[in-house]
């Protein structure tokens, strides 16, 4: 898409409300951010940033394949530590690769809604991560998007490419420090998973009580490629809406979405949308939601278009308070014969029997509830390196996750 056409589309969708989620008034946020100073290595970042990153599972001084850190609108670190992986900030990548014609705005439309339009109309910031053909990384690429100024509208546009036969693991933490009361984060991400490439993408969010979040994600997976996408949100947020769309375009492509939400307040509208467009493709979406307050809408949509596609949706919610709401919306759309599509959804309370069982071993009612809640949030995620598994476990097993 030529730049002029992107700008035109962005202009046309400036007022276009999104299909889901509460409407955000973009004008109430500041679009200009103060530039931040760049650093050579992630270790040299201010300690407040490193600490915030750690809170979302991103250990910036630990072993990794590389790192990307963005503070407000400034990329402060973009560094690869492994020759098989290219990591750049988006403005540099666009310059180096002649506008990234094959990738730029190919999977997310600039005029999808006012949020994508707003990103398209802004100077590019975000990460460009590419795993080169056949290159396999064991250590994850670590990225942190840090919203450090109150009232800012932080816009990010990321591109991830896993070339044929490569293996890439990414962990991204998006966070605000405690002093930022109000803000908006819009993140556009486009994932290109090529033939036989394997990608795991783990995103941990930790926002403030007055922060609004609108990620917009498009994914395409070619023949034999696979994606394990993991999303974790355990801290309060004002509003958040995301509905990543993955297209399984080649034979045997696989996508798996795992979502873990612990809600205490606000309005959270999450889910995944998978198009199974090729034979022998399979998709799985598992979400676990605990609400002790706030509204959570857990969506899942699978569309099977060719024979032999397999899809499974699982939305399970634990509602632990009258102040909360969990609205589970699983959708299966079969458009061919010989499909295998299923879903299970359940919203309920903690089983009395489990509670009593643990209390008979001497745990108080509160301790037993907390153990059950943490167990419930401990989703088994396949296809992740051991280190990442442990980091996710550390996050979902925090002591402060309890019942009402």
């Amino acid at each position, binding site marked *: 898409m030529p730049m002029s056409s992107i700008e035109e589309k962005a202009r046309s969708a400036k007022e276009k409300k999104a299909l889901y989620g509460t409407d955000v008034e973009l004008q109430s946020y500041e679009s200009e951010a103060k530039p931040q100073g760049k650093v050579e290595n992630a270790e040299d970042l201010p300690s407040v940033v490193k600490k915030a990153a750690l809170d979302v599972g991103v250990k910036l001084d630990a072993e990794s394949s590389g790192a990307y850190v963005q503070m407000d609108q400034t990329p402060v670190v973009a560094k690869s530590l492994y020759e098989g992986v290219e990591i750049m900030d988006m403005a540099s990548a666009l310059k180096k690769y002649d506008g990234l014609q094959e990738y730029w705005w190919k999977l997310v439309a600039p005029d999808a809604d006012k949020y994508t339009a707003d990103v398209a109309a802004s100077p590019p910031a975000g990460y460009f991560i590419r795993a080169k053909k056949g290159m396999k990384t064991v250590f994850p690429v670590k990225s942190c998007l840090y919203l450090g100024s109150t009232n800012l509208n932080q816009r990010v546009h990321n591109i991830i490419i896993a070339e044929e036969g490569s293996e890439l693991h990414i962990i991204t933490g998006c966070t605000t420090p405690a002093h930022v009361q109000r803000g908006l984060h819009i993140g556009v991400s486009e994932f290109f998973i090529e033939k036989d490439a394997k990608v795991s993408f783990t995103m941990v969010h930790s926002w403030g009580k007055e922060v609004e979040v609108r990620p917009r994600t498009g994914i395409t997976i070619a023949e034999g490629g696979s994606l394990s996408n993991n999303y974790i949100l355990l801290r309060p947020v004002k509003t958040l809406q995301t509905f990543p769309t993955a297209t399984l375009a080649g034979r045997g492509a696989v996508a798996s979405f795992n979502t873990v939400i612990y809600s205490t307040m606000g309005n959270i509208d999450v889910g995944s949308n998978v198009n199974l467009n090729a034979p022998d493709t399979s998709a799985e979406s598992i979400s676990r939601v605990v609400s002790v307050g706030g509204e959570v809408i857990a969506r899942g949509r699978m569309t099977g278009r060719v024979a032999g596609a397999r899809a499974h949706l699982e939305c399970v919610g634990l509602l632990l308070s009258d102040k909360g709401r969990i609205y589970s919306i699983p959708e299966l759309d079969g458009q061919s014969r010989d499909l295998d599509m299923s879903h299970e959804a359940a919203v309920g309370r903690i089983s009395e029997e*489990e509670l009593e069982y643990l209390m008979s071993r001497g745990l108080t*009612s509160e301790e037993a509830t907390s153990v059950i809640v943490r167990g419930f949030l401990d989703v088994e995620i396949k296809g992740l390196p051991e280190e990442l598994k442990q980091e996710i476990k550390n996050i979902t097993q925090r002591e402060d996750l309890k019942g009402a």
Partner: protein
Amino acid sequence: MLIELEVRHLLEIVDLSVSIGNKQVLKNFNLKIGQGETHALFGPNGTGKTTLLNVIAGIPRYTVEGGRIEFKGEDITHMSMDERARLGIGMAFQRPPAIRGLRLKDLIKIINPKADAREILKRMDFEAFAERDVNRGFSGGEVKRSEMVQLLAQQPDFVMLDEPDSGVDLENIKLIGEAINTLTQKDLRPSARTKSGIIITHFGHILEYMKADRAHVMLNGSIVCSGNPAEILGQIKKSGYEGCAACLCPA
């Protein structure tokens, strides 16, 4: 001169009546279990044996309509389950629930941070289940071993076992019997034992591997006969529960 022997009862149940919903399950039930004693409880299905154990454990689904339960001299009739557990009551459930996301080895540490999880698991030949979610996908016999592992960690003063032998193969019945002997201190001389227990068993196989001091037959919510375990079991095998009661304990 009269020497008054102090009989120390660890558990004393006095005139206990219990209902669930509108159905009365226990009627004026009485039972005393002394320190160091292990009792066996026989009776047909639906006669109130599991209810009795659940009520002692404090599961809140039941309504105590009259009477009381004393443990270590304290009235625990209306105490919460976890308080009872901390006071020293432990239970192996007949059909315990599975707990998703809670690994057995983590539960052992939660029950008793000082417990030697490896040693306990090894003892019950259960090391392979350390990383598994508690009871999730376990076979009938594996569930029973999981229960014993947890009790060995908990070290209760009074252990209740609801059919610990059902669905268990012969080799593991021996392991479970030995664990019960440990929990009830059968390795010590009788006067040195302070821990007690009660076991529900249908076929009595487990009694070949563990020591019970006394047995009771329960019918329709009451104990109708008490005596020596081997004698009672023999009579039940010969003439059924009611026949046993009529023969050994005629009214």
